[in-house]
């Protein structure tokens, strides 16, 4: 089962490699990973999407929590949560008709064109991973995809809860 795991850790050199190393060393999947400092820049928040049965996820959680740099870990998929991923995608726009069709699709997906050249558009889309997958699929039927880059999922639990309590 797909899980989104959120980790609060010291923003220190080596901390990230310890987490990544742990995943490869113990044979856990990493589907995506997204990390950046938070408002207190001595801390970073990392979101990993992974897959595994309950037993594997329990081990992942415990093993990550055991790392000295890790303050807190929570499985967002345990409860209600918001998840988003951002994608930048460059598509070829060879003709006016393609350009129009691309523009329509971008609007439907509430994306934004952020860069234009005579030959292509660069588009920004945000949403769940499924939405981004759907966007890619739709786009590929109209235009040539030149390249794309996705941030990986980041997420927060819904409601009053916070990881830093």
């Amino acid at each position: 089962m797909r899980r989104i795991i959120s980790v609060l850790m010291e923003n220190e050199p080596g901390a990230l490699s310890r987490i990544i190393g742990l995943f490869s060393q113990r044979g856990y999947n990493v589907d995506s990973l997204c990390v950046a400092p938070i408002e207190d820049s001595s801390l970073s928040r990392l979101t990993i999407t992974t897959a595994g049965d309950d037993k594997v996820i329990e081990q992942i959680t415990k093993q990550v929590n055991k790392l000295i740099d890790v303050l807190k870990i929570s499985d967002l998929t345990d409860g209600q949560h918001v998840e988003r991923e951002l994608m930048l995608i460059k598509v070829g726009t060879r003709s006016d008709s393609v350009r129009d069709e691309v523009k329509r699709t971008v609007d439907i997906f509430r994306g934004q064109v952020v860069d234009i050249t005579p030959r292509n558009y660069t588009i920004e889309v945000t949403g769940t991973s499924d939405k981004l997958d759907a966007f890619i699929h739709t786009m590929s039927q109209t235009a040539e995809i030149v390249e794309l880059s996705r941030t990986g999922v980041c997420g927060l639990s819904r409601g009053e809860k916070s990881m830093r309590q």
Partner: protein
Amino acid sequence: MEMMSGAAMVVRALKDVGVKHVFGYPGGAVLDIYDALYAQEDVQHVLVRHEQAAAHMADGYARATGQTGTVLVTSGPGATNTLTGIATAYMDSIPMVILSGQVPSVHIGEDAFQETDMVGCSRPIVKHSFLVKRAIDIPDAIAKAYYIANTGRPGPVVVDLPKDIVNIQESHPYQFPDKVQMRSYNPTIKGHMGQIKKALKALLEAKRPVLYVGGGAIACDASSLVTELAEKLHLPVTNTLMGLGAFPGDHEQCIGMLGMHGTLEANKTMHNADCILALGARFDDRVTNNVDKFCPHATIIHVDIDPASISKTINAHIPVVGSVKSVLTQFFEQMHEINDTERKEQLADWWEQIASWRTRKCLSYAGSNELIKPQQVIESLYRHTQGDAYVSSDVGQHQMFAALYYPFAKPRRWINSGGLGTMGFGLPAAMGVQFAHPDAVVCCVTGDGSIQMNIQELSTCMQYGLPVKVISLNNRALGMVRQWQDMIYKGRHSHSYMDSLPDFVKLAESYGHVGIKVEKPEELEDAMARCFALKDKLVFMDIAVDQNEHVYPMQIKYGAMDDMRLSKTERT
């Protein structure tokens, strides 16, 4: 504030932590630190002959005392040579700090001479690591390293020190932290009261309970509490390979070691138990055998300081996170008065059952007039040391014979590489023990294969006058490998034969020690007596033992815990 160089800070911080011994080997990146070691007497440096041995010495020192062992090595090959020793300590949760030199900060990443990414190389086998970037951070990093190494579930910690920050030409203010506090590291020591009550209820109601005690009980010095609990509740107790001595091996309630080479009674008791209280043990695959057939009737209570150990391989019905010591103390606080007669009554059938398994005498073996049996050597060793020696061991058949035939009565006496199974561990580990306890009798039980993996340390023994007794069970083979080849590969002894062995007696003598060769059963007792009469000497006992002896009992692969071979021809 005192001003000093980074190198002086390293030595001073070691002193402030309370370090007495450092096991190490010099080289370019640590010459400044070695210079700082030169003119002082607070910290004794022990010069080894190979850095792997330095790590095993620090490890043996830690196992025998509970204090963190310390290693100091240079960058590159010095650092990588310690990796096997670090992995050994990591697998057995032994507190150790490894100070490694590093190339100057400006050269990191340039493939400079003797540069290796030590933090990277050691990452999967350490509890934590530091790459120190500024001299003023040295005291803090060292204080944290020792704190992390020896709190919670202990383990090795690497402190990597670039050469420029320990420069003896520069001065920096030195301040050692009064207290180490880390917001991201707060191990749980006390157990959850609700869980403890549940655990106690299950344990007291059980008709066929057993205590399964591992190295975690030794790590937190909980042996006396384990014994108290076992005696109060009349529980049978089995120790793991790492837990030998946590509960006295000569106690009438002790049913011996469990697992792959466990006793019949220990494995039977586990398999038939209705309640297992695991104390600081981790349901290792060398214990459980096939997890799907593991102890089908038991409610499992698992007490461990490391939450990740709980329900990792075997699901725990009642998990309790905490140190064995705290949790047992909490047990006693919650326990009502126990009626001894009723308690005995409750477990009478169970003990009767256990007694019947014991009658099989699974450790009996056939003696011989011509050949010395390895079991017999360990029994003799036990007699000649009154069962009170520190015994380190290497890895192989001799290790299992020592574990089975030397019933350790006290914790921290049995020093072996359980988790990693590192050949070459025994001699340096024994040396570490001897440094910690200069007057104690320290033996290293080894084999002709293992001893050659760190035999160069006989030289270190000479330099420091360490009277370790090396008991080498020489079967002219990699015995344990040979046993598996006999059992599984139809006796095809592929590369398990130790050809061209040296004359170990002459070898020992050339290092300045005493060597004794024993070839006949009738010589054994006298030779042992001679060995232990030479109190101040290292004695190398080269004992020719029966090459064809196997270690039994032995679990049968894919079976339940109690599916075992009892001899070459018998099985359960």
